[in-house]
């Protein structure tokens, strides 16, 4: 393993120190341990605060989505581990502009436990909190158990929708409902080509033989639906797109937005080869591809691989996704 590291145990803290040193105009710490971070101008008076968080190792998820028209605050855990409820609470306090706070994060057990605890503590302090979990990975549970699915790159769209609705002055319930509406119209699926190495473990989280791929992989290297020989890019794009299309029930005439996301070690060039094929499939199927996002939106350290996210658009989602957003990491990409 070759990494730019001083000490595995201080990996996350040094990452955050670097980000705060570089982006002090946009971000500030909301707790003495730097594990709660908010927009430099937070809280935003009488706007709903959007708080997210989770384990480290996925940049720009989660910290990279703190910015105008996106999240107000974030709580940052160790690599692939939840932040503590105290860290979530610290981010919540500094994100509360008086209109309540919406928790938006991926559906992972440890995060749910700690965010739920933080929500209880915040309510005791008089802050109204609601939660919407993002659960977009279609291969992690069947459609009749959608709520059990894990959250992956669709988080990027959830932040955009929540942040845009909040910036327009929507109420807490309205912002929550907008994200739930997005969830009902969004699906993702990933494919892994090489594993992640946790800095503190120093070992790959899984092994893939040369020439193998893991179809349906999660952003922590969770096993997918099958492992097999690496297919040509077009076949992979076809499988991802067909699986999500079936799950969403896409039909000719539907309008969609698509995100082709790199998992950390796959070059942009290859992502555009996948995006090319998705565009061809849409043309062939009479599906209107309104916008394609290509880049690293949710990663898994140095995992090679990609994920595809599809959002079925209506006027409401189209409007929210078109609103301005800015953050040091993803402003121009959203």
């Amino acid at each position, binding site marked *: 393993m070759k990494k730019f590291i001083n000490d595995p145990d201080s990996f996350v803290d040094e990452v955050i120190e670097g980000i705060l040193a570089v982006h002090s105009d946009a971000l500030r710490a909301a707790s003495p341990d730097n594990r709660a971070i908010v927009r430099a101008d937070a809280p935003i008076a009488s706007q709903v605060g959007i708080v997210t968080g989770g384990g480290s190792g996925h940049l720009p998820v989660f910290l990279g989505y703190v910015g105008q028209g996106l999240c107000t605050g974030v709580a940052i855990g160790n690599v692939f*581990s939840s932040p503590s409820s105290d860290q979530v609470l610290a981010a919540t306090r500094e994100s509360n502009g008086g209109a309540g706070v919406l928790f938006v994060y991926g559906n992972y057990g440890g995060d749910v436990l700690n965010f739920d605890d933080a929500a209880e503590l915040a309510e005791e302090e008089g802050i109204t909190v609601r939660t919407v979990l993002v659960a977009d990975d279609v291969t992690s549970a069947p459609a009749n158990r959608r709520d*059990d699915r894990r959250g992956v790159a669709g988080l990027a769209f959830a932040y955009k929708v929540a942040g845009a609705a909040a910036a327009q002055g929507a109420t807490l319930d309205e912002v929550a409902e907008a994200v739930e509406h997005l969830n009902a119209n969004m699906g993702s699926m990933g494919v892994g080509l090489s594993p992640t190495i946790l800095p503190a473990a120093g070992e790959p989280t899984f092994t893939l033989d040369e020439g193998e791929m893991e179809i349906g992989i999660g952003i922590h290297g*969770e096993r997918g639906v099958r492992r097999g020989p690496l297919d040509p890019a077009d076949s992979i794009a076809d499988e991802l797109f067909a699986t999500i299309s079936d799950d969403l029930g896409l039909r000719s005439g539907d309008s969609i937005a698509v995100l082709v996301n790199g998992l950390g070690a796959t070059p942009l060039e290859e992502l555009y080869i996948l995006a090319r094929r998705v565009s061809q499939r849409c043309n062939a199927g009479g599906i209107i591809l309104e916008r394609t996002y290509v880049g690293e939106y949710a990663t898994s350290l140095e995992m090679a691989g990609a994920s595809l996210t599809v959002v079925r658009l209506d006027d409401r989602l189209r409007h929210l996704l078109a609103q301005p957003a800015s953050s040091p990491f993803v402003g121009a990409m959203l």
Partner: protein
Amino acid sequence: MNGTQLAAVLDTACARLASTGDELRELDAEVGDGDLGITVTKSAAAVRTRMAALGADVSSTDVVLVAGEAFGTANPSTFASLVSSGVKAGAKATDLTEVSTAEVVAFGRVVAETIARRGKSAVGDKTILDALVPSLDAAEANSEGAALEAAITAATAAIAETAAIAAKKGRAAWAGDRGIGVPDAGATAYLRFLEALR
């Protein structure tokens, strides 16, 4: 056993858990994200730090509360959070004056109930509960001197049995049938803790 003696027992057990990191990481990586080894070693180290800082004449209840708090904050993953809230709830709800087998079993019952409630899980879902609940049954059915070995035997058998099923809860459930044959990492962590109490 008094509080100071209990703190020493927990300190020794947590020191022994340091060597389980690789095994637990590998088990967890089969079906999850491979961070359980880090959780257990960091959390056990945090418990040791707090045990060393306890005052004299500390009660066993306070020892367990402090240990539970430390275990849950070092690396607050699902496992650490659930175990921590279970241990704290058990310490608050039961009497640990003597730290007798009967007291520890009653304490363990509250731990299991809390984990089941907060984790929305039950025995047979392929979680720590699969080892915890049978180990309490076995300890209860045996004499003071034989309780720990009976608990270890029961937990070992339960883990082997549930290795053959697919997980129904948590990250491992996403792996579905591909997790069949892999022993549950959380239940194994609990077994290693029991063994470390020997």
